Each structure stands twice: as C-alpha cells, then as structure tokens.
C-alpha cells in the first residue's frame, strides 16, 4: 500500500468515525483518524491528542485548566499547571476548514484565558485577557468557537498572568492539517513542544519569577531519558513539528540526516521555500516543521545549546578542571565524611558519581541516561530517533538499541583496552550514603 492509498483509507475511517460522532480516544499514538480529509495523526511524545465530539458539524473540544503533579523523569515530580491534568496539554488536532468549539473550564485558583497562538480567528477569540475577552474566572467555562482557515503547526497558551502560567506548564500544540491532504504524504508526524523550567533543586513547584537561569529543559515537559523515543521505519517520511514556548531559542540538531525545514505556524511552506539543514533554530514563540526520510540507526536529536542537554548545575560551581585537590581532599574529608572531590579531570565522572552519591530531594542529576556503550551524559532536551528496517507501520514501540552492522562502529585502535574508571570508588566513604534516596534506575550494572 503506497502512502496515498493509505491516506484515502484513513479518510474513509475518519468519515465513519464522524458519522457515529465517536469521541476519539485520548491515547498517545492511537491511530486516530478524523477530519474531512485524510491525514496522518500526530503523535505527541509522552502526550495525548485531545478528543472531540462532533456537534452539528462543529468539533467540540474541552480543555480543563488545573493543577496536578507532573513527573519530568523518575526522581523529579512537580506541582504544575496545565490542561486536562497534563503538561503540555493535549494536542488539539483538526483540519483546515473545520468549525471548532473549544470549551475552557478554569479550575485554577486565578483567572486565565487561552490564546490560540498563530491561528487566524476573530479578534474576540484571540484570548488576550482584558483585550479580547473577559478573563475566565475560577470555576467558569468559556467557549472559543471559530473556523480554521489555515493549516500548520500552532500552539496554545494562556494570555493571562502569562509569565506565571506558562512557567507553571500551561501550554499545548494545535495542529491543523491541510484540507486537501499533503502533497508529500507524511508517515509519522511527531509533536515536540520545547520549554524551560525553573525547578530549583530540592523544590517541587516551578518558580515563575525566573527569567534566564532555568534548571530543566524539556521536550513535551520531559527530560532525557524520560522523553519517549521517536521511532520510524527505514525510508518513511517523518515530520517533527517543533514548538517553542520557552524563554530561550533552541537550535535543534538531528544527527545522521539532512532534514528539510518545511513549515511553521504559517503552514506547510511551498517546496521552493524548503531548505536542507541539520540544525534549525526554533525561536521563542516560533514553530518549525522538519521532515526527513528515515535512515536506519539510533540518531541523537537535541538542542545544541549544550547546557540545554543537561539538567540543573550550579552556576557558581568553581572551575575544577586541572586542579590537584588531593591536599584539600584530606582536609575536607576529615570535616565532612563522605566528601569526594570531582571535576579535576572533567565532569563526565559526574554521572557515575550521582548514581552513588545522594543529591537533593526531588532533583535529577545533571547527566543521565545510559546506552549500549555506556553513559550518555545527557539530560534535558535530548532524545534519540530510532529508525529500523523492520519496524511495522504504526508501531511506535521502542525497538531497543540499534544493532550496528559489522564494522560500522568506531573502534579502539590504540591505548588501554579498558579505560580507567572515571570514578575511584575506593576513595568514597559509602557509609555516609543514603541509598534510599538514590536513583538506581540509570545504573549500568553490566559494568564492573
């Protein structure tokens, strides 16, 4: 079945669904097909698509703003604000030409609104509290209703107490598929919303007053390795829709591919405007669509601001590189049993270190994640695009690590066969460690 035929089949299914006014399943990755014209539903990594009810040819969605507990990765849970109990809120997915009604119920302690970012609509539906509409007070439900007159990758977020409510996690993606289908059909369509969080170490609620020094950098409000891996079958056309509601720009880099930048909240651009890249800056408040034909392998994809691919690190930590701390070690260890110097040879040892040494409550180590060859020493806005020859269409399950063909892995040609351990554990005073607070999930027990 070629891609076009698959879309026609999808369209038929969508019509069937509409006829019975079936509420779409709020399930990540479910092969939901809806709308007037066939399209490949987006998959919101770690998220869901918002279901709707068709009422008199109007697609009616319901967002409920409220507070809930959100996990950035095992070991870090925060009290966040968002929609329908999650951040980012469910992805709204519709088709150009649809008449939509979005009910917004406010279960927050303060008023809110929703701004439909980048969407062409009547002024009174634009969602700027006090300008376009009265605020939605706690307990109230407002209806936004308009006809979608465009397609593209869009976002939604509050325009009331915006800095706080965005900092607390209130955001979502709004995907409008073209009514006439895609000239170049998409096999897998991923949604990634980029954000930053002032989740200070040891705390459990984002700090809304921070403007620059953020602690966590997330894709769909998750940090690596908790971000669901995007997967694809070799040769499939993959689109990744990137939105940025953080306060920093993010140069997103995909390894192993030359992708083409094909669209934004201005819709899918004419092909003449497409441009090949390997890194695309997604500016604050912008969206970007990148497309590529999948090449087998495990390919890193991440923001290229290197501190955005790690979790919190103290800005005042002195530069330790090249220092001989042996004398200070003895003195400090006599005062603080369990102390261990680090950083003299580099910071890579930190990942091993953090597995053994307890950190602050509810705080993720700076570096996390292990792969088939060892520590990845990453965090934040980092994930791996996993592409396999044998992945079935519609299968979004993690296929595991890539089995590199013989002779295609960089090999050691000189030097010791076994690298010296990054951390000399013999110097550590394990009696002072509280193992009950450690996250052992990232430990690679295969290593000696």
């Amino acid at each position: 079945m070629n891609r076009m035929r698959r879309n026609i089949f999808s369209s038929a299914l969508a019509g069937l669904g509409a006829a019975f006014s079936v509420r779409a399943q709020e399930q990540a990755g479910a092969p939901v097909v809806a709308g007037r014209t066939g399209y490949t539903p987006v998959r919101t990594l770690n998220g869901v698509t918002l279901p709707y009810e068709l009422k008199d040819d109007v697609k009616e969605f319901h967002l409920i703003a409220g507070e809930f507990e959100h996990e950035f990765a095992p070991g870090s849970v925060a009290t966040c604000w968002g929609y329908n109990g999650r951040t980012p809120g469910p992805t709204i997915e519709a088709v150009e030409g649809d008449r939509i009604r979005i009910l917004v119920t406010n279960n927050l302690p303060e008023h809110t609104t929703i701004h439909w970012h980048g969407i062409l609509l009547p002024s009174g539906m634009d969602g700027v509290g006090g300008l376009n509409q009265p605020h939605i007070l706690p307990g109230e439900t407002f209806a936004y209703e308009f006809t979608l007159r465009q397609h593209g990758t869009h976002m939604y977020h509050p325009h009331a107490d915006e800095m706080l409510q965005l900092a607390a996690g209130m955001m979502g993606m709004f995907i409008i598929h073209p009514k006439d289908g895609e000239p170049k059909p998409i096999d897998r369509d991923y949604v990634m919303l980029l954000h930053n969080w002032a989740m200070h170490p040891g705390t459990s609620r984002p700090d809304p007053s921070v403007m620059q020094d953020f602690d966590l950098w997330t894709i769909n409000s998750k940090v690596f390795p908790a971000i669901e891996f995007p997967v694809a079958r070799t040769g499939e056309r993959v689109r990744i829709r990137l939105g940025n509601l953080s306060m920093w720009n993010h140069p997103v880099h995909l390894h192993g591919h030359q992708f083409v930048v094909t669209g934004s909240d201005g819709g899918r651009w004419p092909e003449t405007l497409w441009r090949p890249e390997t890194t695309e800056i997604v500016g604050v408040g912008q969206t970007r669509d990148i497309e590529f034909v999948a090449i087998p392998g495990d390919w890193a994809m991440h923001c290229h601001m290197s501190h955005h691919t790690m979790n919190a690190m103290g800005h005042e930590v002195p530069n330790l590189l090249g220092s001989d701390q042996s004398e200070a070690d003895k003195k400090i260890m006599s005062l603080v049993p369990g102390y261990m110097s680090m950083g003299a040879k580099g910071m890579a040892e930190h990942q091993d270190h953090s597995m053994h040494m307890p950190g602050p409550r509810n705080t993720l180590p700076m570096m996390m994640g292990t792969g088939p060859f060892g520590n990845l020493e990453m965090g934040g806005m980092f994930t791996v695009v996993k592409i396999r020859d044998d992945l079935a269409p519609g299968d979004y399950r993690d296929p595991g690590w890539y089995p590199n063909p013989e002779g295609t892995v960089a090999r050691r040609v000189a030097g010791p066969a076994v690298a010296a351990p990054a951390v000399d554990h013999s110097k550590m005073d394990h009696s002072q460690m509280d193992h009950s607070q450690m996250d052992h999930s990232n430990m690679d027990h295969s290593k000696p």
Partner: protein
Amino acid sequence: MGRGSRFKFILTFVGIGFGLTGCMSADIRPDLTPLAAAVGDRAGGAPPLQEALDLALVEPLLAKPLSMDDAVSVAVLASSDLRATYAELGIAQAELADALRLPVPTVEAVLRPTTHPTQFANLEFNIVQSIVDIFRRSDRRAAAEKTFEAETLRLAAEVVDSVTDVRRAYVEAVATGAMIDARREQAAATDAAVSFAESLHKAGNISDLELSVRRADHQDSLNAVAFAELADADTGPALAQIMGVAGRVPEIPRWLPHPNGADPGIEGLEAAALERRLDVVSHRQAVASARAHLKEVADWGRWPEIHAGASAELEGEGEWAVGPTVGLEFPIADQSRPAVARAVAELTKADHELKSAEGAVRAEVRTAATKVAIARRLVDRLRDVAIPLKRDIVGLTQGEYNFMLVGAFELLDAKREESEAVAEYAEALHEYWMARIELAHAIGGADLGMPMDEEAGS
C-alpha cells in the same frame, strides 16, 4: 597577826586572783563544727568542713579529671583564703571565751610612805568585785553568743562565696577551653577552603583575588582561635589558684555538660533564699543581737555601779586591819540615756539593713532565675534545633555538591556555619552554668546538680 600568818594571807589573796584568771583559759585550735553547721549543704558536694584541715585529701582529687564538685572540695581543703577564714573562726571562738569568762575582781595594793619611826610605809590590799556585773552576766553571755553566731555566719557566708567563686572559675575554665575547640574547627574549615582554593588557583581556575579572599578568611579564623586561647590562658591558673593549688594544672573536661532535667522554677525560690541566705540570716541575727543589747541596756542602764570587796591594811603597829568594802556610783546624771538611745539606733539600723538585704536577695534571685530560664531555652534550642539544622544544612549542601549544584566552598562554608553554631552552644552553656551558679548563690548556696558524666559538645 604573826609574820607567818601575814605571809599566808597575802599568798591566799593573790592566789585567789590568779586562780580565777586561770579558769578562763581557752583551746587554741579552731573548732570548725559551728562553721560546718552554718554552711550546711550550701557548699554542694564539698567534703565536711571538719575534714577541711586534712591536706592529704587533696591529691586523690587532683589525680583524676576534675568535676565541679571536686574543684570545690579541693578549695575547701587547700584554699589559703578559706583556711584564713577557718582561722578567723578561732579568733571568734577566743573572743567568745573571753566574753563568757566570770567577772574578774579587781585586786589593789597600796603602798603609802609614813613618818612613823618604825614603819617605812603603810601597806594596803583591796579586792573588789562589781556586783552588777554578776547580775548582768547572763544577758552579756547571750549577747556574746549572738555576736559569735553572727561572726560564724559571716565566715560561713565567706565559705559559700568562696565555693561560688570556685564554681565560677571552673565554668570559666571549661567554657573557654570549649570555645577554643569550636574556633579550631572553624579554622579547619577555612584551612581546607584555602587548600581547595590553592589547588584551583594553581590550575588557573580562580583569580588572585579569590585566593586572597579565602586566605584572609582563614586568617580571620586563626585570629578567632588566638582570641579564644587568650581568653582561656588565665582561666586554668585562676582556677588552680582559687582552689589553693597554684602552679598545678588540673585536668578538666573540654565541654560543659548539657543540663539535665528541669531547672528550678521561680516559685518558692525567694522564700527559700530568705531562709537560706547566710547574709540575710546574719542580718537577722544582728537585729536579734541589737534587740538583746537594747534590752540589756534598758534593763541595767539605770542601775548604779555597785562594787563589793575586801580590804586589808597594815596598821602602824604592824597589825593588819581586814574588813569588807562596798562602793556605789552616785548617779548625779542619768547615765543610761545615751546608751539606750544608741542601742535603739543600732536596732533601727540593723532592722533597715535586714530589709535592704532581703530586697536585694529577692532581686538577685529573680534576675538569676530569669537568666537561667533564658539560658536554658537557648542551650536547648541550640542543641535540639539550631545545631541539628546546621548539620542538616551540611548534609543537604553535600547533596547539592554531589550533584554539582554547589562547590566545595559552599560545603565548607556550611561546615563553618555548623561550627559557629557549636561555638554559640559553648558560649550558651557558659552563660547557662554561670546563671545557675548565680542562682545557687542567690538562694544561699546549693548543689548545682551538674552532670559530669556526659560532655555536651562531644
């Protein structure tokens, strides 16, 4: 009377006089029993004062780590000041004995030249005894005993004061030693920070300024150690001196203990103090003494002095004329009035001094009890809240250090803050035990109940 009879008469006459004098001799060693009774339990765990002259008891006490009670015991045994006090008791006892001796008759011998051809001179012997003195003797005895009691109380108060001084010196010595330890731990933290800074500086990672700041910080800590050592320098010798073992270096604990149990409440303390305070008791005795003196003066002041005695005179013919004599003061003016007025004034003065002393004691007790309560809250809060919090902060900072959220400087700063809290605790224990000593003194001396089997700061 023949020659031999005359000689016997003279011998008998003189012998009676010296015999009566010999009856009044006193023991020259001080008897500490009345002093011990007056001190009672006011010296805490000190040995009985009856043993106070036995210096052999000192060495065993100095051979082990010295508790506060041990220090008091050593002082009771060896302190020169206290031994002077014991000697003063001997003086008081002698004065009492002097006051209690029987009225002594006056013996007179008169030799008058004569113009008699065969007799060179007239010889006359008289022995006279005041009759009034005999009748006033019981009142005078009572007054003398009251004076002795007052003197004993004064000396007992000196003993209690000395015990308080020893306690103060002991607490001072231990507290200043503890402060040195706390300051040294702070200096260890800044020393480690300097080592760390030097390693970073050598690697080119921090500036000269940052290194100098850390070095200066360490110098401040060393200065604090030196000041603590200065404060400590004279406390040990002072303790040894006040204990009467100057030149010795007694071994004392490094920390004052944390108080056990509840502190005495203010209720009933003032009444207890008024009951137990020796200075108040002494003032009370002074009032009683003045009142007795007034009674004596009032009762006997109007009586004229009456003397009775015997007279022997050698007549011109060589014969002795012997016969009784009686003398009576002729009261031309009222001799008693100034004496009674003086006695009334002395009673009034003693009464006001008693009231003043009682007021001072009440204030002293209230102040001391308030300080004890405040200091107790402080030491409890430092031990149970502040220091555990600072230790938690060190642990939490270490967690942040482990995750590279802070550096070793912050960790060492946290450790230094913990040491600062420990230093505050040492200072607070000092304040507490000083307040307890003042309170014990304010209520007339008491056992402090200082637990010496645990060291709070260890």
